[in-house]
């Protein structure tokens, strides 16, 4: 026991960098030879970080309690959706949290139809028509994009499509929203072409496009393609992978 405590003290000093030069080189020599000491050092690293982590958790808890003591006060309860903030969220888009809430609506013995699954998992991609990250070659193109995104936001998909079709090659954003508008208006085949284009360009909409591509296949009832698209998402471990897994299972 006493020896172990000494080694614990040494390992602690080693981690903290508080050993003398001699102590450190002795310790390192022993580390090369003694497997147990290596294990102890590793454990000590995990334990010391873990204790700090526990300390942080309780500090967090205490702060949350402080906040809770304010609960009853006259807070404004009005909630401003964060995506409405054009100034702050000036970049292109914020996705709504896709609600995967309804596993239970399906009878387990009955395989849900593709359309039902589509309706369950599909939520139009929410956008924010800011002006941060666009490639605006010209004012009018920018204005068109603005108009299109506003139309999309108002769920006027046909109008958005009409504006976006001629300018879809300008950038990935146009192409992504055009494809989203196709899907939202039930034109799954066109959506598939578009999302594939977005994915192949490999830009910042890739993950979103992968998910909506999979949903487009579900919409068409093409289970095999849908599953293969979902596998890509699951393997990528992207933010959509949880939903993708859930949908994949239901397609079986």
């Amino acid at each position, binding site marked *: 026991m006493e020896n172990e*405590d000494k080694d614990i003290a040494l390992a602690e000093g080693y981690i903290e960098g508080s050993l003398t030069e001699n102590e450190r080189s002795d310790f390192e020599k022993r580390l090369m030879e003694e497997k147990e000491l290596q294990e102890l050092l590793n454990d000590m690293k995990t334990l010391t970080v*873990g204790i700090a982590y*526990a*300390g942080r958790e309780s500090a*967090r808890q205490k702060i*949350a309690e402080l906040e809770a003591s304010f609960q009853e006060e006259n807070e404004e309860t*009005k909630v401003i959706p964060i995506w409405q903030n054009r100034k*702050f969220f000036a970049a292109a888009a914020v996705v709504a*949290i896709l609600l995967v809430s309804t596993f239970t609506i399906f009878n387990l013995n009955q395989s849900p139809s593709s359309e039902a699954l589509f309706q369950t998992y599909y939520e139009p991609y929410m956008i924010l028509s800011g002006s941060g990250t666009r490639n605006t070659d010209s004012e009018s193109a920018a204005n068109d994009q603005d108009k299109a995104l506003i139309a999309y936001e108002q769920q006027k998909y046909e109008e958005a499509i009409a504006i976006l079709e001629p300018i879809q090659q300008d950038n990935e954003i146009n192409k992504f929203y055009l494809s989203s508008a196709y899907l939202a208006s039930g034109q799954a085949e066109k959506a598939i072409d578009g999302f594939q284009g977005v994915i192949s360009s490999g830009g910042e909409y890739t993950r979103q496009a992968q998910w909506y591509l999979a949903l487009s296949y579900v919409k068409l009832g093409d289970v095999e393609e849908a599953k293969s698209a979902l596998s890509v998402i699951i393997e990528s471990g992207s*933010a959509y992978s949880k939903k993708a897994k859930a949908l994949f299972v239901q397609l079986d």
Partner: protein
Amino acid sequence: MVETSLIEKIKKGGESELAEVYKAFRGEFLSWITKNFKCTQDDAKDIYQHTILIFYENILSGKLVELKSSAKTYLFAIGKNKALELYKASNRFTDDFDTVKLGGVDNSLEELDEKEDDLRLVVKSLDELGEPCSQLLRLYYYQKRSMDEIAAEMGYKNTDTAKSLKYKCMRRLKKIYKKASVSLN
């Protein structure tokens, strides 16, 4: 408020002083952050709590010894960075906004990586370890208090007594942790 002595008190575990800071700047902070970053009241509260945590930890680690400006300026500067971080994170994984770590509820245990699993196991083991060990270890490893201070605060005869207790506690914690991790694997 004499801010340097306030910091010293918080460093020595002054919870009421921390609460005082929390109360003093909360209202102004929340309205400032919701106005300038147009976020919801709930987001603003998360940001404020996180800001206070950072403020607290900077005091513990000795990064913050004295305030060159006022506590308010300091807190608002942290808050601004937090809000921007939140923005960047929500922009990068736009659909994953609610899992951005803001000290909120952890709803994705299964997604935590292995390392975090290890840490959680340590937290559990620490609970099992009980007092006074748990407190002693937290004081040393989280609150970064010296062994002299710990000995005085916890009423030990001298620093050496506290030190040898610390190693004993560590040995026991390791035992509990090892046992728990073996039974998990």
